[in-house]
C-alpha cells in the first residue's frame, strides 16, 4: 500500500474485458504528453517574459535571499523577531488548535457523506454481476452518485470556500465545509473503488444462500470494505491538514487567516512563526495518523 492521499488502488475490474485498449494508447499518450510538456513550457516562458520580471535570474535570487534572511528570519531588523517572543507563540497556539479542529471537522463531514453514498457509486453492486435485480432506477442512481463525486472532486477546496463564504459567517465551520465538499468526492470515489475491487466470492455465496440486498451489504460488502476505508480516511487526513491553512485564507479561521493578515501587514517574522506551527501540526497529524493506522491493521 502506498501512502499520500490516493494510494494506487489495484482495482479488480468489475467489467469483463481485460484490455479494452490496444497497445497504441500508450504510444499516443506518450506523444500527447510530450506535446503538452513542450507547449506548456513555451507558453510559460512566453508569458513570464511578458510580465517583465525574470524569475530565474541573479537579481531575483538576491531578492529571494534578502526576503529569507531579512524579512522571514528578521536578521537585520532592530525589532525582536516574533518567533523569539513567547507571547506571540502563545497567541498563535489557539489558532493552530482551530486549524486542527477544522481539519477533523472537514474529514468528519466528508466521511459521513462518503459513507452514505459510496455504495451507490460501486459498479459491481449497482449494475454489475452482484446486482441481479439491477433496474433502470439503480443505474440512474449509480450515474448520479458518480457524477456528484466527479463534480465535488474536480473543484478544489479553496474554490468551494469562495462559494461557501456567501453562506456561512467566517470561522472554522465554512472552512470545514469547503474541505468536506471536495473530500467527500475524493473519499466517495475511493470507497466505491474499494467495493468494486472486493473479492466477489463471499458476496456471491451469501446471495446463493438467499441473502437479500441489505444482508449482502451488511455481511458481505461492509466488513471487507470498512477497514480499508478507515485507512484511506486517515491518509486523507494527512492531506487535509496541509490544505486547512489554505482554506483558512478565505474562510477566515485558524492559521490561514493569521497567515493572510501577517502577509498583508508585512509582519514577516510572524509568518515564519505561523509556518513553524503549521509544520508542527503537519508532523503531529502524520504521526497520529500513522499510529491510528496501526490500530486499523
Amino acid at each position, binding site marked *: 500500500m*502506498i501512502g*499520500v*492521499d490516493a494510494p*494506487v488502488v*489495484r482495482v479488480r*475490474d468489475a467489467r469483463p474485458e*481485460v*484490455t479494452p*485498449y490496444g497497445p497504441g*494508447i*500508450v504510444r499516443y499518450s506518450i506523444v500527447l504528453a510530450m506535446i*503538452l*510538456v513542450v507547449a*506548456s*513550457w513555451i*507558453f*510559460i516562458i512566453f*508569458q*513570464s517574459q511578458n*510580465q517583465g*520580471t*525574470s*524569475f*530565474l535570474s541573479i537579481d*531575483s535570487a538576491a531578492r*529571494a535571499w534578502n526576503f529569507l534572511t531579512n524579512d522571514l528570519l528578521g536578521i537585520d531588523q532592530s525589532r525582536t523577531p516574533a518567533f523569539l517572543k513567547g507571547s506571540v507563540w502563545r497567541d498563535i497556539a489557539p489558532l493552530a488548535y482551530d486549524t486542527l*479542529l*477544522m481539519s*477533523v*471537522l472537514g474529514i*468528519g463531514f466528508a466521511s459521513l457523506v462518503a459513507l452514505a453514498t459510496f455504495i451507490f457509486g460501486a459498479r459491481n453492486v449497482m449494475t454489475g454481476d452482484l446486482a441481479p435485480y439491477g433496474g433502470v432506477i439503480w443505474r440512474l442512481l449509480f450515474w448520479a452518485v458518480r457524477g456528484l463525486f*466527479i*463534480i465535488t*472532486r*474536480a473543484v*478544489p477546496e*479553496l*474554490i468551494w470556500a*469562495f*462559494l461557501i463564504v456567501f453562506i*456561512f*459567517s467566517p*470561522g*472554522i*465551520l465554512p472552512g*470545514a465545509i469547503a474541505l468536506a465538499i471536495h473530500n467527500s468526492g475524493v473519499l466517495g470515489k475511493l470507497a466505491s473503488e474499494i467495493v468494486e475491487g472486493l473479492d466477489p466470492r463471499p458476496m456471491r455465496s451469501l446471495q446463493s444462500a438467499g441473502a437479500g440486498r441489505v444482508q449482502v451489504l451488511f455481511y458481505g460488502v461492509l466488513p471487507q470494505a470498512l477497514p480499508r476505508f*478507515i485507512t484511506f*480516511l486517515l491518509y486523507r487526513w494527512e492531506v487535509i491538514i*496541509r490544505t486547512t*491553512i*489554505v482554506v483558512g485564507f*478565505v474562510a477566515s479561521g485558524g492559521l490561514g487567516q493569521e497567515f493572510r493578515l501577517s*502577509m498583508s501587514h508585512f509582519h514577516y517574522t510572524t509568518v515564519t512563526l505561523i*509556518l513553524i506551527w503549521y*509544520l508542527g501540526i*503537519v*508532523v503531529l497529524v502524520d504521526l497520529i495518523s500513522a499510529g491510528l493506522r496501526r*490500530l*486499523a*491493521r
Partner: protein
Amino acid sequence: MRGQGLRIRTLTTVDSRKWLTVILIAAFGWSLASVKWDSGTLHTGGLSAVGEILGAAFTPQISGGVLKLGIIEAWTTVAYAVAGLTVALVLGAPIGVIASGVLARRRFISVINVGWARLVLAFFRSVHELVWAWIFIVAVGLSPMAAVLAIGIPYAGILGRVFAELLQDVPEEPLDSLRSAGASEWKVFLYGRLPMAMPDMLSYTFYRLECGIRAAAVMSFVGLGGLGHQVQLSLQDLDYGRAWTFLFFLIALVALVDLWSSMVRRRVSA
C-alpha cells in the same frame, strides 16, 4: 498451541478496530461541539444564497465570449499544471530513487543517503502549494514561474516518496535471478526494478496531473491567471451563473484527465 495464538491475535485486531472507531467518533464529536452553533453561524440571507448558487449551476452563462475566455483560461491552467509536474518529475524522481535506498551498496552510506533524501522530500511536501506560491511571489515577484515552482516542489516531495515506496515494493525473486547472473545493482535497477515499478509510477504520475490541474486553478488566489481567476472575478460581480461556467470548464478538464489516465492505467496494469 498455534491455534490459540491465532485466536488471541484476531481478538486484539477486532478490539483495536473498536477502539479506533471510538477515537475517531470522539474526535469528530469534540470538534462538532467546539463550533459555535447559533443564529450567527449562517449569514443573514445565507439560506437564500444556497438557493441562488445551486440554481445558477443549472443556468451557466454560455455566451461566445465567456466560452472563449474559458478555453484560454483552461489552457493556462493546464500549462501551469503540466510545467509544474515536469519540475516535480525532474526533481522528485532522482531524490525518490535515493530515498528508496535500492542502489546503495554499503550500509552506512545508504542510511545517510536515505535519511537526507527522505527529510528533503518530507519538507517539500509538508507545505501546501499555495503557501509556496505566495512566498515565491512575495520574495521574487509575480511570474508564472512562481506557480510552476510552487506546484513542482510539493509534488516532487509526493512523487519522490511514492516512487521510493513503489521501487521498494518490487518483488525480490526476479531481481535475485538478475543478480545471480552477475548484474550490478545499477543493472538490476535498470532492467529489473524500474520496468516492474513503471506501471504504478506512471499511473500515480497521471493522478498527480489531475491534482496539478486543481492546484493550478487556485493559483489565482495569489494573483496569477487560470480558471480560478475567472471564478473569483465572477463571484466578485455576484454573477454565479458565469462562475459556474468556469467551474464546469474545470470539472470537464479534471474529468478528461481522469478518463485519459484510466485508459492508460487499464492498459499498462492489465
